[in-house]
């Protein structure tokens, strides 16, 4: 079933996908920090307000994933920030998360060595987002 991107339903499906992934489970073993994704507003893309995805991840599992204001995501241990259209590129597999981070297209806050140690987990997590059928606000 198609869900609106960055909605509560989307967050629920994202959590299910992460918890279904054996690849993520193995790659994120030992991970114990929260991750926030900040999706910056792009009013011209019908995405008028920034949103935040807060992920409570622990030892290869997603304990909780919620969507709310960007300020919630900014409080996480690790924060990845990009405009709406860039996140859309990630979800559409047009931008690889590793390349995006190396190029500075996805801005990263948090301990870099830890993130680099878990590159595979980050890649699989974004891969999980590609498995959720979504409605995009700029495609209505």
């Amino acid at each position: 079933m198609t869900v609106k991107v960055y909605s509560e339903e989307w967050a629920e499906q994202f959590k299910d996908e992460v918890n279904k992934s054996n690849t993520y489970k193995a790659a994120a073993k030992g991970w114990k920090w929260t991750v926030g994704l900040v999706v910056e507003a792009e009013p011209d893309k019908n995405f008028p307000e920034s949103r935040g995805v807060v992920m409570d991840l622990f030892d290869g599992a997603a304990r909780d994933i919620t969507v709310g204001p960007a300020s919630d995501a900014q409080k996480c241990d690790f924060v990845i920030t990009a405009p709406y259209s860039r996140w859309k590129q990630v979800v559409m597999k047009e931008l690889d998360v590793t390349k995006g981070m190396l190029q500075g297209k996805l801005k990263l806050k948090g301990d870099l060595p830890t993130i680099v140690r878990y590159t595979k987990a980050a890649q699989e997590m974004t891969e999980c987002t590609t498995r959720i059928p979504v409605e995009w606000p700029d495609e209505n």
Partner: protein
Amino acid sequence: MLGGLIEANVRANVHKRQDFDALVARVGIWVTDIDEGVTLVFDDGRLTVYNGLEPRRTITIHAEAETVMSLSNLKIGPLGLPVYYDDVGRGVALKLLRGRLKIDGLLPNIGTLNRVTRIFSVQ
């Protein structure tokens, strides 16, 4: 990002700090699948990061983004040498053999490469 990674590593680990302080080298990293790169100029405890490849490089690493990340994930063995016999190390060695990882200036500068690898490694 690579400059930030080195800064964090050096701040957190005294051995990496010693390597960093002793290193004088111009290291180019060209990420082949994004067609972008940087030159890291190490100069007695200082690091300057330039966008693109600057002249007079000691070594230049050409690799895909994923391989650059793998280089950062190489474990360092007891003699301070990168470990090439675990999964990550074997992957890097295979890429080197298959030409998907190229290191210009490798043979005369193996010591420099090992030191750079130690500074880069997050393991």
